């Protein structure tokens, strides 16, 4: 680990990508993530990397597709409306099995909404905003440091699965400054892509041409293709689930499920409740796809636990996954707010007390 430096989330994300060996960045400005582009507009030339400001998010999505298809390690960053415009491209990239990293610094929605932190794109990110059967592997950081680590992890994962990976942050993660350390050791060499990438037959010394496509006109082939994609998503569910437990060792009356910025507020609330002698546990999904089904169910059915509350900066999205995996073993409640008015610890304490 290097020394601690104070950095804005957006800039740290840009730097993390470079440290992870990603020197290709295409993006279109949008609040609250524009600082990534501004940072990399300066940094990429210094490290001999590529920075291109696309004409739109639609175009950027396909620049990413093309670059990734040609074998490059590549990423982009955007925010909610911009990500919607990329949803066709994300579906194509998943269908063509290309690795790529997308960062969504969520802002309030729907529509133009607002520019303050929100978690309103949970569904879009985890259930596939685009058409067809595909999933992204989605990680949700709760601090600038974690954003850095997840970005650096995203590239090898994208290549392991030849699938898009999304970092699901929010305006606070992007705009806030916190101390960060860059784990240099995480830097990974891109995997060998000679078997599929359109890198030019000559440069990979092969006489076999490569094809990057998502079209399968024959229904049986398309079904097989989808079964193959499904097997990758099943493998993610088996191998890539990441989550954090907080205060779940002892007895707790209530289990909170919360991710990203929202989980930090919950952590404070849990600490304050502890001082009042009220025990509350929390599971914080770090991957929201794959979702930590079993850990949440196990934590929910603990003798002492009377109810589960999914707390989100939205109108109730993750709660559907929580309900699904709690399987009716405990009542599942939801609390949330959106639009940037992040609930305070005091508010959360109230919500929890009502459920005791």
């Amino acid at each position, binding site marked *: 680990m290097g020394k601690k430096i104070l950095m804005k989330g957006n800039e740290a994300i840009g730097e993390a990508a470079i440290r992870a060996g990603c020197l290709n960045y295409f993006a279109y400005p949008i609040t609250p993530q524009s600082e990534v582009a501004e940072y990399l507009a300066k940094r990429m030339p210094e490290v001999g990397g590529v920075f291109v400001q696309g004409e739109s998010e639609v175009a950027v999505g396909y620049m990413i597709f093309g670059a990734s298809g040609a074998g490059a390690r590549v990423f982009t960053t955007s925010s909610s409306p911009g990500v919607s415009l990329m949803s*066709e491209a994300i579906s194509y990239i998943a269908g063509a099995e290309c690795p790529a990293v997308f960062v969504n610094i969520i802002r309030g929605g729907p529509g133009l909404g607002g520019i303050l932190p929100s978690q309103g794109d949970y569904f879009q990110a985890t259930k596939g905003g685009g058409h067809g059967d595909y999933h992204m592997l989605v990680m949700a950081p709760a601090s600038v440091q974690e954003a850095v680590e997840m970005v650096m992890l995203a590239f090898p994962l994208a290549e392991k699965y030849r699938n898009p990976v999304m970092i699901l942050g929010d305006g606070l993660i992007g705009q806030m400054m916190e101390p960060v350390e860059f784990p240099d050791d995480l830097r990974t060499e891109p995997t060998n892509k000679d078997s599929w990438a359109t890198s030019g037959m000559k440069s990979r010394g092969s006489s076999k041409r490569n094809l990057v496509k998502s079209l399968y006109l024959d229904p049986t082939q398309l079904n097989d293709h989808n079964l193959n994609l499904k097997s990758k998503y099943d493998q993610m569910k088996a191998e890539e689930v990441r989550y954090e437990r907080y205060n779940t060792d002892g007895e707790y009356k209530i289990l909170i499920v919360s991710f990203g910025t929202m989980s930090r507020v919950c952590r404070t609330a849990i600490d304050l409740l502890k001082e009042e002698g009220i025990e509350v546990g929390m599971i914080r999904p770090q991957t929201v796809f794959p979702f930590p089904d079993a850990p949440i169910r196990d934590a929910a059915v603990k003798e002492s636990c009377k109810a589960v509350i999914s707390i989100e900066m939205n109108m109730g999205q993750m709660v559907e996954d929580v309900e699904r995996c709690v399987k009716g073993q405990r009542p599942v409640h939801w609390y949330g707010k959106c639009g940037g008015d992040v609930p305070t610890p005091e508010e959360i304490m109230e919500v929890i007390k009502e459920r005791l």
Partner: protein
Amino acid sequence: MAKTFKKPEALSDAHTHYCPGCTHGVIHRLVAEAIDELGLRDMTVGIAPVGCAVLAYNYFTCDFQEAAHGRAPAMATGIKRVRPDLIVFTYQGDGDLASIGMGEIIHAANRGEKFTAIFVNNAVYGMTGGQMAPTTMPGQRTTTSPAGRDVTATGMPIRMAELLSTLKTPSYIARQAVLRPKYITKAKKAIKKAFQYQMENRCFTFVEVVSTCPTNWGMSPLESVEWAEKTLLPYYPLGEFKTPEQEEQDAA
């Protein structure tokens, strides 16, 4: 005067799915010949559009990517920016490039992306069954202009070569046709020239090719060629609209 003729290496043996007399096949061959003659096959990446040429990757023997409808220029940009040493071409229809893909082609051209766009203008949407394209002629009947294109409601046909050549960034912009051998030979020259400029890393290169769609025009292949010559060529004049030489000083 006797000559030999054989299928270029850059073309596969596959029989195309194109309708009888559709000149997509001619354009494929010309691109393949240019690639062969310049010895680029093993460093070329083609980009198939969404359109009748969606399966183009089956007919070429170089690396290929398949784009979403209209987005081939953005994909080509992505490839060229990360691999400037590769030769990249897009192959796009008029619905693909001039309708949904208008933003992408203009910005790729204006950024001066160093790839070659082959633009097949057949005045109609072929693959989806003959709907109106931005290039459809006034009065021309299509499945979405059953009474003939009404210019008061849908405007005049868009001339992409002319439109792109008004951009200040240097580029090579030409329009040719593949309606008869005499045009085909010229089209071949233009396409080859475009690839040569790309090899020199010179500028964005664009060759519009006036083509036919017998099926959706509801004509025989021969009638199609004649109609295109009579109706399309007067509105879509052939020639070079812009060369980097003309422009480089202004841009400097």
